[in-house]
């Protein structure tokens, strides 16, 4: 089983739809959970960041972490064509667990999202 599983899609939705993106993971040591957005031919940029379990909301975006199920989600409300991108989940264990503090991230494969006007 891979450490982080993410459905690569592609996912195509109409403008205004609610989008749900998900990742599952197997490493119980992961404490930090991130969603990166990557536009075509660009580098990834951080979209949302959550520590441990719970929800975090930022405008139209909501990140959820369920550590008991080892499952994280990103919800996009009122999706816009400008949201069309690849969304990568990323995770990291705590600094204490990673020893030298390399703060390495383990990424999912990314889900390609297209929002159709």
């Amino acid at each position, binding site marked *: 089983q891979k450490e*982080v599983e*993410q459905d*690569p899609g592609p996912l195509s939705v109409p403008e205004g739809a609610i989008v749900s993106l998900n990742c599952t993971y197997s490493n119980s040591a992961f404490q*930090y959970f*991130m969603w990166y957005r990557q536009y075509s*031919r*660009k*580098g*990834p*940029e*951080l979209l949302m*960041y959550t520590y441990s379990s719970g929800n975090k909301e930022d405008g139209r975006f909501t990140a959820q972490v369920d550590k008991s199920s080892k499952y994280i989600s990103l919800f996009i409300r009122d999706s816009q064509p400008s949201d069309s991108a690849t969304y*990568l989940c990323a995770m*990291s264990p705590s*600094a204490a667990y990673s020893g*030298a*503090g*390399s*703060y*390495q*991230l383990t*990424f*999912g*494969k*990314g889900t390609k999202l297209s929002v159709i006007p």
Partner: protein
Amino acid sequence: NAGVTQTPKFRILKIGQSMTLQCTQDMNHNYMYWYRQDPGMGLKLIYYSVGAGITDKGEVPNGYNVSRSTTEDFPLRLELAAPSQTSVYFCASRPGTSGSSYEQYFGPGTRLTVT
């Protein structure tokens, strides 16, 4: 601030050739990383550095070398290019242990083709 810059943007190499991918950051970040991204495969860590003079292997280091003589620069060296190294290469950096997150700041990438 320019952030993380990478050169070149594109490169075509012949099998067996060598090259250096350049990465520079102007944010005074301690941690720097090199990733490769193959289509549909996410980001794989090649090498990382926790500060000048300190580097370590990531998940896929074979065929690559790095050095970190300054805080700003973290070049990635390919000694004998192989078709399996065709990929998009991203450099990233992050601050030290203080700060609010594990956010890594990515460069724009270098697209490398080996034929």
